[in-house]
């Protein structure tokens, strides 16, 4: 049915919309910032947002200033060369031009402050320093820059290009990748080994020293149809006694325009709406046996139905994921034992947290029901001694249900915590963490909640939310780690979640595109 919109009614709806959009006001720039700049008679506030179109002129200005400063330095040096040498003065603030080590309550902590845009995204430690595969998808935040898809894709993957190495973390040089992989490459640490794999063709290599590489015989990872742009991602490895398990996801975006049979690019709107030729359809995805359908939510009419048999999706556990922004996905678990690598399809669904208790693997999933009939919401606990054969133990108890599957199951035993298993739950892109502990994987108790990103290090759990760093031996009580003046304190932070670059090294990134400083924190082994 078509509704007639009179001018008055139309204006009323537009006014209602404009009113809704004006209901809140951002904090920045604050009154103080504005008046400060005004009192400076037009002085600009610091450009913390760092947009490229502002950065380029800023860089030119900075280059001119740098040239002027260099000239002054040169002139000064010429003058000092003729003067009597003065005694050097110990600076009050620490020298942050390189690694600086502080003694803290939890041991030595080294800091490296790196100008933004120098540090590559997704860096990792190597025996010679650091490296980053910037050809593929790196940790970070990405936006839809323009067009009708006004979405902020915070899932954390940014398309970038290249491979670079650095000995000190501050200066980077482009280099040839260490393996002959094609297309985007990514890296993970599997125990003491480095693994590098090609996202697009599934080839992989491993090395214990980052010099000599051996190809890993990964199980077949071919796409279900040649039309799909297939990609392989490996998750955080969980190292057991003699076996390591690695969650593996293969996925591809659905070629909507081909599948929907429309000319041009259909516009997908986040949140379950699709715009085809200017017409808006509220949609939902239904799974009916082997058929995954994109359904007009109002009329119930199928806009698109993918037959799992036709599309060879029948063997794929997940079918369509992610609502209107659909992907074809397959989730498996790599089981690594020495040189032998095999892939299994566990009973538990993707997004399940896997951990090692010291005796066995445990998989925990705790999702809220999606529908009234969806009892348990796909929650469950599974265990395995060899990583291959999994037993369903039942439902987890004591875990608050979550609407997102992002959890990390840490090894509490290794971290000398009070619970053998520690579950860290963090919403995608968020930093706040909720920490749960369990003895058996089934009964859980919330140990604490912290405003930082939590990492399990040799010295226990560390929570990082710049400028605050907290430490916990038991996951319950947190103690703020005192750092020396001039470290991170006072630095504004708009950052993406910190991530691990090495066993004891954490990267605290800035928001991509923000001209600010990124921090590398290395928690030294000696205590």
């Amino acid at each position, binding site marked *: 049915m*078509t*509704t*007639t*919109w009179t001018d008055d009614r*139309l*204006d009323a*709806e*537009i*006014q*209602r*919309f*404009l*009113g*809704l*959009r*004006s209901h809140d*006001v*951002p904090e*920045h*720039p604050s*009154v*103080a*910032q*504005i*008046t400060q*700049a*005004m*009192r400076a008679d*037009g*002085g600009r*506030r610091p450009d913390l*947002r760092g*947009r*490229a*179109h502002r950065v*380029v002129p800023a860089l030119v200005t900075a280059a001119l200033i740098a040239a002027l400063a260099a000239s002054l330095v040169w002139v000064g040096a010429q003058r000092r060369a003729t003067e009597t040498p003065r005694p050097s003065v110990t600076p009050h603030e620490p020298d942050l031009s390189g690694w600086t080590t502080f003694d803290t309550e939890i041991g030595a902590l080294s800091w490296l402050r790196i100008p933004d845009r120098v540090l590559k995204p997704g860096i990792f430690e190597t025996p010679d320093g650091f490296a980053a595969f910037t050809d593929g998808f790196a940790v970070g*935040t990405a*936006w*839809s*820059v*323009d067009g*009708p898809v*006004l*979405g*902020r894709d915070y899932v954390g993957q940014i398309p970038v290009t290249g491979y670079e190495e650095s000995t000190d973390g501050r200066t980077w040089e482009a280099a040839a990748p260490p393996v002959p992989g094609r297309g985007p490459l990514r890296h993970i640490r599997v125990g003491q080994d480095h693994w590098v794999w090609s996202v697009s063709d599934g080839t992989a290599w491993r090395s214990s020293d980052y010099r000599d590489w051996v190809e890993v015989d990964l199980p077949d990872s071919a796409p279900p149809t040649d039309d799909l742009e297939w990609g392989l991602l490996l998750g955080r490895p969980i190292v057991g006694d003699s076996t390591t398990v690695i969650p593996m996801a293969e996925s591809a975006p659905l070629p909507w325009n081909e599948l929907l049979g429309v000319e041009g690019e259909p516009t997908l*709107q*986040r*949140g*379950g*709406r699709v*715009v085809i030729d*200017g*017409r*808006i*359809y*509220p949609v939902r995805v239904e799974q009916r046996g082997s058929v995954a359908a994109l359904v*007009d939510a*109002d009329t119930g009419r199928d806009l698109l139905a993918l037959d799992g048999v036709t599309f060879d999706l029948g063997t794929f556990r997940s079918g369509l994921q992610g609502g209107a922004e659909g992907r074809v996905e397959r989730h498996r678990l790599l089981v690594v034992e020495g040189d032998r690598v095999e892939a299994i399809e566990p009973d538990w669904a993707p997004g399940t947290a896997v951990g090692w208790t010291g005796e066995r693997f445990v998989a925990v999933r705790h999702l809220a029901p999606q529908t009234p009939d969806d009892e348990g919401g796909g929650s469950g606990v599974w265990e395995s001694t060899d990583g291959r054969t999994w037993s369903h133990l039942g439902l987890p108890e004591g875990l608050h249900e979550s609407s997102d599957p992002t959890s990390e199951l840490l090894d509490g035993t290794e971290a000398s915590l009070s619970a053998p298993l520690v579950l860290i739950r963090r919403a995608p892109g968020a930093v706040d963490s909720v920490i749960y502990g369990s003895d058996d994987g089934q009964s859980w108790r919330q140990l604490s909640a912290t405003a930082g990103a939590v990492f399990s290090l040799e010295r226990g759990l560390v929570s990082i939310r710049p400028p605050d760093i907290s430490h916990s031996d038991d996951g319950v009580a947190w103690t703020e780690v005192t750092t020396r003046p001039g470290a991170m304190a006072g630095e504004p932070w708009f950052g993406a979640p910190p991530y691990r670059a090495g066993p004891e090294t954490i990267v605290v990134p800035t*928001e991509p*595109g923000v001209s600010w400083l990124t921090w590398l924190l290395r928690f030294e082994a000696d205590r």
Partner: protein
Amino acid sequence: VVSSTRTEAAATALEHALDEATLDGFVRQHRDRLIQLARLVCLDQSDAGDAVQAAFEQAWRHRAALDDRGRLRPWLDRIVVREAIRIDRRRRSPLARFFGGPREIPPELVDARATPDPTMTAVRIAYEQLPADQRAVIALHLHLGYTIAETATIVGAPLETVRSRLRHGRERIRQALEEDPR
């Protein structure tokens, strides 16, 4: 039309608004409205902040040029709207798009789940697809209550141009609403 702009009690306050002593109060009085207006034009929270910052600085620098204190509010709105349109155009320039400057969209405007009202979603999609100068006249006329003539003065365009922008903007939104299969 929501409200009239000339009835603000600003006239008396303005006698002291643009001096050093009452600067904080002056900024506080206008900041929120200006940010909201700029955001309606350039759709970006951060850019809106930049536009407002720049507008206040311009206002401060050129405060001596404001001879009619009763016109302070439209004067500020004019500076902000023009600045927001300029920023929006700059952001859409080939250079900016080449460098891929991130565009921050407030979450409540991004996620349709946060605005489950299908009418509002349709209006939002259509409004965001309008050119910035059409958004500006819609925001000034329909949200802030300026007359067509006042809007024309603020955006610095002929009366007919403003009417045309308003008509085109309305039609785009009307079309989106009529095609919305509710």
